[in-house]
């Protein structure tokens, strides 16, 4: 590591001020702590952490992997920690649910080298199927959690989390939310480490094997270690208190940033005592002192009334009978993220300030720009042909990936979704009770993430399902992380350039062999743009019995364009003399490159990828493929 690294987060320039994305601040914090091993599965809003490590791992000498799923990521990292390494895992909130089985026993066994799991939360479910409050993990599993409000917090907390984890032998969660992950803010760099932990595994089954006899001993130790965590936090820098006013405000996460902003903007510093909660367990002494110093408390936190209940319990136990306002009192909603306006308005109410005049800005009705499959996306082609063969009545169970955009008009290819890998299991459930052949759509990365056991289960039950695997050779939705079918991982530019193909260029996992290995006999491999091949495969699958699999191989158009340095197929054009505005293309495909203006159909020549699906669909031959020589 040198001062002159081309990667800013590797610079050894202590004291440097920089404006860093929250996710990069987390990566920087881990690098300053001497992290030696990093594993992750991408998921918004956490993905940039892994992508940052993908770029710098080689130069920084860090072992790195995009794991096949989050459970695997934490298990591998935990073992590396037992051997002494400082390890970190990155994932979104739902990823930690998936990894919760191994994770739940890790506090018992205890870590060797410091272990930090970043589990990024998503209040308001901006890019997730739910919003959940991971802070409950602290009481649920006796795991300390850091709750950053700003990128600087994210850096400082992550850096400290490693030594804290080693001191308590507890795995530690850093829980940023979308507004912290995806905001940039000022951070101050600390020094880069001069040395790292020694790697040495001392065999000790009595400590590493939680058989019941050992687990009960570990349980007692865990209580002690969790108490030690509270003691260490009590003297840490993560509970700053400002002001000495009678109005207590206690806040956590990005809501603390909004609250501090509102206190400053309203100029009420003399009236207020503002307490940040930066970690859990909240040291009881800190809360007790705070409660003694104020006449009332307003708790400002997103999601569940977690801190609020904690404060109320401590107030009761300490017989400090002052009002505690927050979600239970109706000051704040329990759902969704907070805006700075909301926080300021509640503060005004709490401090008996005049409410701001309601602004009467009326936003006129504006056309939306909903997310849609890209022009030329192979998933659209697959959905189109599958509906042609399987019809409207078939149930289409979809999964997590870009292909969830098969939802709604006009593709109607997503009747249900639950979580990663659920397409196959949901199809099994539907097929078993209705007796009707059911279709599951799942992408390559998601298939290996959690589709494999689901498929094995369907095979053993002989479920009447057709699994359509949408293999686009990349984890597209989260920003083009490699999947197991990516040819020679990292052959392209961008985030993955540092990652070399684990199996060498030209070699990648074979979905066909995996599927056949699980006992599926009817396996069809097709290019979805080969009309004859895909139609005959889908027809055979529809007429088959038991589990069959259709694998549609075609690269993500956006990623392919990157690999080809912007080169694309020539766009198609609509001949206005032949088009009779029948709207079939729009009613069937939902391609954003097809524009309709006053009943006139045209193709956006910049957006169109020239996949030619609309040309094949058009009954009037009005869509013409432009030959390369003609543009």
């Amino acid at each position, binding site marked *: 590591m040198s001062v002159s690294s081309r990667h800013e987060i590797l610079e050894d320039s202590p004291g440097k*001020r920089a404006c860093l994305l929250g996710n990069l601040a987390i990566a920087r914090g881990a690098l300053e702590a001497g992290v030696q091993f990093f594993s992750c599965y991408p998921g918004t809003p956490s993905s940039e952490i892994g992508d940052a490590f993908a770029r710098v791992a080689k130069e920084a000498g860090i072992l790195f992997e995009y794991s096949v799923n989050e459970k695997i990521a934490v298990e591998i990292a935990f073992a590396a920690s037992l051997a002494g390494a400082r390890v970190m895992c990155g994932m979104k909130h739902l990823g930690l649910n998936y990894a919760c089985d191994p994770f739940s026993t890790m506090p018992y066994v205890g870590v060797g080298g410091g272990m930090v799991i970043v589990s990024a939360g998503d209040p308001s479910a901006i890019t997730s199927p739910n919003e959940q409050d991971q802070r409950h993990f602290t009481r649920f599993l006796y795991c300390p959690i850091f709750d950053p409000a700003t990128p600087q917090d994210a850096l400082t907390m992550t850096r400290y989390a490693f030594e804290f984890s080693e001191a308590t032998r507890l795995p530690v969660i850093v829980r940023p939310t979308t507004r912290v992950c995806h905001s940039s803010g000022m951070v101050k760099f600390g020094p880069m480490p001069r040395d790292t932990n020694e790697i040495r595994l001392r065999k000790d089954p009595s400590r590493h094997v939680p058989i019941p006899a050992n687990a009960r001993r570990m349980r007692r130790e865990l209580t002690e270690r969790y108490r030690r965590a509270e003691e260490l936090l009590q003297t840490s820098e993560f509970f700053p208190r400002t002001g000495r006013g009678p109005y207590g405000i206690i806040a956590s996460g990005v809501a603390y940033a909004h609250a501090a902003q509102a206190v400053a903007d309203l100029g009420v510093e003399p009236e207020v005592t503002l307490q940040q909660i930066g970690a859990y367990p909240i040291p009881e002494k800190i809360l007790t002192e705070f409660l003694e110093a104020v006449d009332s408390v307003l708790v400002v936190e997103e999601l569940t009334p977690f801190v609020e209940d904690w404060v109320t319990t401590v107030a009761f136990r300490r017989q400090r009978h002052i009002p505690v306002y927050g979600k239970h009192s109706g000051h704040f909603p329990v759902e969704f993220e907070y805006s700075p306006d909301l926080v300021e308005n509640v503060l005004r109410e709490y401090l008996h300030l005049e409410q701001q005049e309601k602004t009467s800005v009326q936003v006129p009705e504006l056309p939306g720009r909903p997310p849609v499959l890209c022009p030329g996306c192979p998933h659209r082609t697959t959905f189109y042909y599958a509906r042609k063969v399987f019809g409207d009545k078939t149930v289409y169970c979809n999964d997590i990936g870009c292909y969830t955009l098969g939802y709604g008009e006009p593709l109607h290819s997503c009747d249900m979704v639950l979580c990663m890998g659920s397409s196959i299991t949901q199809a099994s459930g539907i097929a078993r009770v209705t007796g009707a052949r059911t279709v599951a759509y799942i992408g390559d990365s998601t298939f290996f993430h959690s589709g494999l056991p689901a498929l094995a289960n369907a095979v053993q039950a002989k479920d009447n399902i057709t699994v359509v695997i949408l293999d686009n050779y990349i984890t597209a939705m989260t920003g083009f992380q490699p999947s197991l079918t990516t040819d020679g991982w990292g052959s392209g530019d961008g985030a993955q350039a540092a990652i070399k193909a684990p199996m060498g260029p030209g070699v990648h996992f074979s979905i066909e062999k995996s599927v056949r290995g699980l006992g599926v006999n009817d396996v069809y491999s097709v290019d979805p743009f080969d009309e004859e091949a895909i139609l005959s495969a889908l027809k055979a699958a529809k007429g088959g019995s038991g589990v069959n699999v259709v694998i549609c191989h075609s690269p993500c158009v956006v990623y392919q364009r990157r690999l080809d340095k912007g080169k694309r197929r020539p766009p198609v054009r609509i001949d206005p003399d032949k088009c009779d505005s029948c709207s079939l293309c729009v009613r069937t495909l939902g391609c954003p*490159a097809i524009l309709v203006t006053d009943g006139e159909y045209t193709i956006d020549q910049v957006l169109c990828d020239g996949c030619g699906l609309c040309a094949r669909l058009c009954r009037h031959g009005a869509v013409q493929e432009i030959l390369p020589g003609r543009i």
Partner: protein
Amino acid sequence: MASRGRQGGKSGWRVLIVGTGGQGVLTAARLLCDLFVDRGHDVVSGQLHGMAQRGGSVQSSVLIDCGSSPMIAKGRADVVLGFEPVETARALPFMSSRTVVYMNTNPVIPYTVGQQWVLSKGKAEYPCVDELRETIEAVTPHLYSFDVTGLAEESGSSTTLNMIMLGCLLGSGSFPYAPGDFCSALSGRLPPASADANRKAFSKGVELGKTFQRSECYS
């Protein structure tokens, strides 16, 4: 307790940059951040790019010397840099009578406009840009609009739209720096292949910004 707040705690600048995916909103925000960090300012910037993709709505806030929150409160934007008319109108809740708005008048028509009509018999129409302008002017008199896409295409590349908009902001006298200061700092941050075109676009934007009346709220 009587109201005695500073009404927005005006101390720094709150800039909201809006447009559609592919117009370079995030790049413009990043450059603006870097330019002010270089000059010793504290910058916090928030972005909304969850499902953002080519053609989707993009909003990015840049708060210079304002405090800790990464989000701009309703009615508190000092400047809105609108790369697209409908997206500028979507930012109306963040505007007040003090907000200065620089708007590109050239629309990016959402595909839903025609398709929605075919699919759901909805009435999604692209509004008339003059009406959008009137709606914004009903909130703030400081609206400056121009066909910036046209200007970008004139200079040979529509991808320099964001540089013209940025030049326009920095050339308008909104900040206590001469636009020339930024020009040299920009050069080092642009990919060499497109640096020349982007520098020219930035200068064009600066000239455009100078023609817009200097806003009172910064004096």
